[in-house]
């Protein structure tokens, strides 16, 4: 028996690439959700008071518990309350929430790099709040936020295989099924690994590029 069967590998490649498309789609949808939720969580946390304390406690709990168990929780418990979501939506909602709390910390760290004196100076110049945010805080915070947010995008992509446990059809579920059907696991799992490798490399390259462009452009504009 050959260890690596090229014919079989070529046979299953299109199916796996298609399934990996689903993994990517899940990642993009969840990342969009996490970016939006993260902004809300960051706003809640920065405003202080009771809402900030409650958000902080929930954030701590979500970030210290496994995504897989959170997926099971949403997938199995929510229908009992009458809310029935598809497996796909369950996955996207759970990933968005989990990473939303991480992104909230990324936003906060980015905003905090801008010295308080700058905001006070801008306020003394009677700039409007929205102007201060757009012209003073954002140009300095974005180059800090971008690489960290990009890292979480990659983490998120690598967490999508957990969704196979709640029957979402993505690349690991398809690989596992192909392996079981043909009693050959090496080809599907290796191809799946290579697909992850290629896309996380491309993503980190892209993030680096964005970061450099942003630093150049924003820096010029602010000076």
């Amino acid at each position, binding site marked *: 028996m050959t*260890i690596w069967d090229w014919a079989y590998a070529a046979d299953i490649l299109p199916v796996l690439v298609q399934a990996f498309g689903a993994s990517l789609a899940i990642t993009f949808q969840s990342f969009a959700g996490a970016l939006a939720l993260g902004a809300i969580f960051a706003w809640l946390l920065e405003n202080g008071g009771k809402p900030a304390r409650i958000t902080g406690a929930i954030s701590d*709990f979500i*970030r*210290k*518990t*496994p*995504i*897989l*168990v*959170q997926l*099971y*929780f949403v997938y*199995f*418990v929510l229908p*009992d309350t009458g809310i029935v979501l598809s497996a796909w939506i369950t996955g996207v909602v759970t990933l968005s929430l989990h990473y939303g709390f991480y992104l909230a910390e990324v936003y906060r760290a980015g905003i905090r790099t801008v010295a308080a004196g700058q905001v006070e100076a801008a306020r003394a110049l009677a700039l409007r709040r929205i102007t201060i945010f757009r012209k003073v805080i954002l140009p300095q915070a974005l180059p800090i936020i971008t690489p960290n947010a990009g890292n979480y995008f990659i983490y998120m*992509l*690598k*967490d*999508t*295989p*957990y969704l*196979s*446990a709640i029957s979402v059809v993505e690349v*690991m579920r398809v*690989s*596992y099924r192909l*392996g079981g059907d043909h009693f050959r*696991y*090496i080809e599907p*799992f*290796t191809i*799946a*690994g290579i697909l*992850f*490798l290629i896309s*996380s*490399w491309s993503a980190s390259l892209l993030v680096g590029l964005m970061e450099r462009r942003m630093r150049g452009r924003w820096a010029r504009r602010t000076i």
Partner: protein
Amino acid sequence: MILLEYSGPIARGIGLTLVIFAGAAFMAISVGTLVGLLLARSKLALRAVLRTYVEVFRGTSAVVQLFWIFYVLPIFGIQLPAVSAAILGLGLCFGAYTAEAIRACILQIPKGQFEAAMALGMRRNQAFRLVIMPQLVHLALPFIENIAILLLKATAGASLITVPELTFTGYIMNSATYQTFTIFMMLLVVYYLIASVVTLLAGRARRSADRWANSVRA
């Protein structure tokens, strides 16, 4: 009460989760520190091999690695029990993360310090032990803490390769009883408690490492 009824399997599940966590953490820290230190040295023939290890394990998903080790290694005649496969897979995966963190921390320590120590007549291993190591531990501990929490969360993935750890136990309990809320809430709370203990221990380790660094200086 279902939790009382299943207290035996739950306890065994928690035990197995802790065993995988401890085993993989030990492996990740030893492999990661060694690889990180070697990668920080500029000229090294091993570099390409170590770089490949780090890139491959960081670039693919921990779940993919677990499946590969559990289902593919037997083709090469290496048949590991599921628990060992989980420890090996997670240990190597998070070892790669640790290696990157250690490398980044080493690069933060100015090279002049090592040279100064040599100029003062210290031997290489003395300089490393007395000058570099205390600072490295101080710098690296927050990263190690983060990685440890990520690792603990990733142990749940071992359930996907049939290890009867905590998440697996919960899943089976759910199929038998459908007490969804109680079971999955219990799982979340147990993981949260373990993670909180890890955070607590990491904080203590950092304080005692700082005391150690100060005592070396004095």
